[in-house]
């Protein structure tokens, strides 16, 4: 009995510790965003709640919050969509068709993804300048797609690989062409896998900082993370409250997506581990 209680206590302690570790900074961020002054933890100060920072970020046009958010959503959605459009058929070809050397192809793709992005940044900048794409959506979308494609392809390939081959053969007998097999059998069955892969690509693009910093110049294409980081330069002092308010609002879409679809994401990512 006591052992049981101890066990439970330890589980709760572990869970609480993990939560504190992960959520602590987020809570701190939210508190600063809601505090009258950011140094509310200092001696002689108290926490006075206010919504003025949030309101400022949301309502002051010069801060371009909605521009940045819009850019981020468009770039992320385009990246995710394009990524699935390429990775889906590619994974189908690599897992279902009699492609010679498909393992070599998969490994080569994995090798490509090993390049640290920093090493490519200067070249990308020169390329985008030459194309005249600096500060446009394609300048971000194309590198993002290239960047998440290997991971997406691997996830989808393992996902497609678990769909029994007999289904393809049955569909072939039932009169389907390769495209029809993909459309009528594989894609519907791979729905959760496609969805979680797309979501990963979306969140990656939404959070990406380095390329967005270098390849955009203003609110026409700049994304949320860069907007938050460059916030401070606009005023004389560092407006912590507003920066944190900005950050709070910026993570909402990502959190919303994950919470709304967590079941499907977890199902999609762990399908290989457990049968069914």
């Amino acid at each position: 009995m006591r052992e049981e209680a101890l066990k439970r206590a330890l589980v709760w302690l572990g869970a609480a510790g993990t939560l504190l570790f992960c959520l602590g900074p987020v809570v701190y961020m939210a508190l600063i965003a809601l505090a009258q002054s950011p140094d509310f933890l200092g001696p002689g100060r108290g926490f006075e709640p206010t919504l003025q920072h949030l309101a400022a970020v949301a309502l002051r046009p010069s801060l371009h919050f909605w521009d940045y958010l819009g850019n981020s959503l468009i770039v992320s959605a385009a990246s995710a969509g394009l990524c699935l459009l390429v990775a889906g058929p590619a994974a189908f070809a690599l897992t279902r068709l009699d492609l010679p050397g498909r393992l070599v192809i998969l490994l080569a793709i994995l090798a490509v993804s090993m390049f640290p992005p920093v090493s490519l940044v200067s070249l990308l900048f020169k390329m985008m300048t030459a194309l005249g794409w600096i500060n446009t959506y394609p300048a971000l979308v194309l590198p993002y797609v290239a960047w998440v494609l290997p991971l997406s392809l691997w996830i989808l390939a393992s996902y497609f690989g678990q769909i029994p081959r007999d289904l393809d053969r049955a569909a072939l007998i039932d009169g389907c062409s390769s495209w029809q097999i993909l459309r009528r059998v594989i894609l519907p069955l791979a729905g959760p896998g496609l969805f979680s892969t797309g979501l990963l690509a979306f969140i990656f693009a939404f959070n990406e900082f380095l390329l967005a910093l270098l390849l955009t110049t203003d609110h026409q294409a700049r994304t949320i993370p860069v907007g938050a980081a460059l916030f401070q330069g606009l005023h004389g002092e560092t407006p912590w409250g507003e920066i944190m308010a900005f950050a709070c609002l910026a993570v909402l879409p990502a959190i919303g997506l994950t919470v709304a679809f967590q079941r499907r994401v977890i199902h999609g990512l762990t399908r290989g581990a457990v049968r069914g």
Partner: protein
Amino acid sequence: MRLRLENLSKGFASLRGRVQAVQGVSLEIEAGEFFVLLGPSGSGKSTLLNLIAGLERPTGGRIWFGERPMADAAAGLFVPPRPRNVAMVFQTYALYPHLSVFENIAFPLRVDRVRAGDIEARVRAAAESVEISDLLPARPAELSGGQRQRTAIARAIVRRPGVLLLDEPLSNLDARLRASTRVELKRLQRRLNLTTVYVTHDQVEAMTLGDRIGLLNKGRLEQVGRPEELYRRPASPFAATFIGSPAMNLVEARVEERGDGPVLRLAGQAVSLVKGCVLPERLDRGRLLVGLRPEDIGLIPGPAQAAQGQVLRGRVASLEPLGRETLVRVSVGDEEIAALTSTKDLEVGAPVTLEVDPARLHFFRP
């Protein structure tokens, strides 16, 4: 639809080198016939079925459906499954998990762009014929093994295929369901008069279902014939031991000439062959393999009364009660011969006499 296979071969490149899964198979299957491809695993029977279906491309030989050539390795001709109008039932059933039973059955019709009204009627008719009308809204995951199997059959027959192919369709069912489904399958095939090719490794299934059986071994056709032909006149030691249960005894023997006619010398004993025995012409002298079916051997407890004629003397080595009968393994010299008997009071080690009917012996080249 009449099927004709001519010198059909299929080789695969594998890690172990080249594997010849099917070698020089020539075969004709008549319209409306229930033809069973029987063989142990790895004998090439599923590959042969896939070649007929158009799921695989032959590396040699030709396939005709009626008068139409479907594959010709030499001429580079290969017709994919769709225009062949074949239907197939897979061992795993291969139902589409994301579709209802109705949509599973309707799938080939939808791919064929059949009119919606016709689809409805034909799906219901097919479901009716395998008695799953009440399951149409269910998903495959909600079905039992037998129900899935029926769904797979309904999907196969709904498009009125020219040829119905079944790849071990009963092997995932439990024994009782397998027996009843076997009967239903045969009835359905008769009623629809479908040319059917059925793959199995189970000789009981082959014997009960097939109008004819093609016995495959290592990619080659060992023997083709009606079930009782394969049982009565096996063409090779492989056919002899593969068909019939319990398996036929195969014993090395020698034919000797004696004053009163030929004698079979077997496990150190002699069996006179004069009565009712026709030796195949080319096998009539020297060493050969003799086959005796356990059910063709008479077993008498006790030592032989007369030490001559068509008997073998031995001792009981083991007993396997099968219910109505008992399978007795008898040591005869240094051979062991299995016999079926309904005699009850036998003990291991007891002397017994085996009566052999020379007319029921099978002779093979060693």
